[in-house]
């Protein structure tokens, strides 16, 4: 079953960009009370680009691996471009385009946090 392929499990066990930024420009906490998944995203922005991003939180393997892989993808991107990033693209980046509907919320929780952080910017 490729939901738990090695790449996902590696990101879950050793997440990239885990931690806090000393001087974030914006941060946002997204929480799913139904399963207790929680992701806090912190962004640092310079010249209209995402300079640095970190996350903390806890949850299932899918939500944590998703936060890890998504934050890797985000670094260096234009903020304007990120504002229109579709969820479908995120699932492609995660390699989870075929994820079961029941787990979609887990996979997209970090993306929800991103959308809401970016909304706070304007």
């Amino acid at each position, binding site marked *: 079953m490729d939901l*738990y392929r090695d790449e996902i499990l590696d990101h879950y066990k050793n997440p990239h960009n885990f931690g806090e930024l000393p001087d974030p420009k914006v941060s946002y906490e997204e929480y799913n009370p139904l*399963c*207790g*998944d929680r992701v806090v995203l912190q962004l640092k922005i310079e010249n209209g680009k995402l300079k640095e991003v970190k996350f903390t939180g806890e949850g299932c*393997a899918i939500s944590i691996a998703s936060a890890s892989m998504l934050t890797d993808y985000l670094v260096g991107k234009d903020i304007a471009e990120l504002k229109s990033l579709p969820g479908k693209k995120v699932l492609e980046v995660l390699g989870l385009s075929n994820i079961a509907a029941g787990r979609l919320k887990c996979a997209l929780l970090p993306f929800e946090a991103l959308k809401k952080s970016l909304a706070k910017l304007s």
Partner: protein
Amino acid sequence: MFDVNKIREDFPILKRKINGHDLVYLDNAATSQKPKAVIEAVADFYENHNANVHRGVHTLSEEATQMYEEARVRVAKFINARLPSEIIFVRNSTEALNLIVWSRGKAHLKKGDEILLSEMEHHSNLVPWQLLAKEVGAVLKFISFDENGELEISNLKSQFSNRTKVVSVVHVSNSLGTINPIKEMTKLAHEVGAIVVVDAAQSVPHMKVDVQSLGCDFLAFSGHKMLGPMGIGVLYGRQELLEVMPPFLSGGDMIRSVTINDATWNEVPYKFEAGTPNVAGAVGLSAAIGYLANLGMDNVRQHEIKLTDYALKKLSVIPGLKVLGPLDAQKRGGVIAFTLKGTHPHDLASVLDGEGIAVRSGHHCTMPVHLRLGIPASTRASFYIYNTKEEVDKLVDGLEKAKRLLTK
């Protein structure tokens, strides 16, 4: 004559492959699978008898009406109600509980009156009472559960007052598994003049339930959790109480006469069955009861005790696994919710699904239980008549696999 292998042959869905494996269906507390007898009874109704009930004098309408009323008689016998008219057909337990809250509850509860529930209620026996309490200014009180997941009823008397109007409790908890002492609680409640409502969604499908012996005033359950179709459920209520209750939903079928400005109500139970009922559902439920009665509810219970006991023993040796609720199979239904250290319930359920094993993950509509235990969610395996020890072994193997994959 309880032969699991023979029983399994009656359930077409058990032949399904899930992700390349034989289906191991352990989500029976959510809904049960259906035997051929039930599927065929529903098909037979639509193929040969379909018509609206209580409305026509033509042959089909009379046949449909008779089948519907026979189903009511069968349900009444199954739970030992005094009269068939004490059986009201609804959609599910949730609707049955809402009916009591919004008919009897709203008519009888005043500001400052007390509603006594337990801390282990399913949301369907909690949220409607919360709404009613807000609307009329009544007070909600809760019987707590101890570290074994058993209700603390030693000091139950002190929880009652002359303002206690309703006690509404779950018979078997769908997350802790606990079987609550309804009979004792009913006695105490009646001493202070409170009525007793029982959420029997997880008991009627799995053990002999006798409403007269329990002594309760109302009892709710769902057909779909006891081999029956979805969309048919039952509210049992004592005739004297039903007779003086105002209607819940109104419209066709539930009236005796209507003028342009006013209406009078039909007799019980029709007063509470507004609109075209789920006749095929009632017919299917009747077939399900026939199937269960043929097995014998005591045999059903014994089978589940054996499986639960076996599962509790196998699960408790998995390091880091913690079972919610009592650890004695005699004290609980065949529902085992648990946490496994270092793994999230959703991940466990997904890995198990990869092995063809269906379990539930989440809070099982009992968020307050999980809050009280300080966990966001749990994984739940729940058994029924067609489950086997081999399936419990597969569950344990699946959990070991999930642990290897997921723990850091």
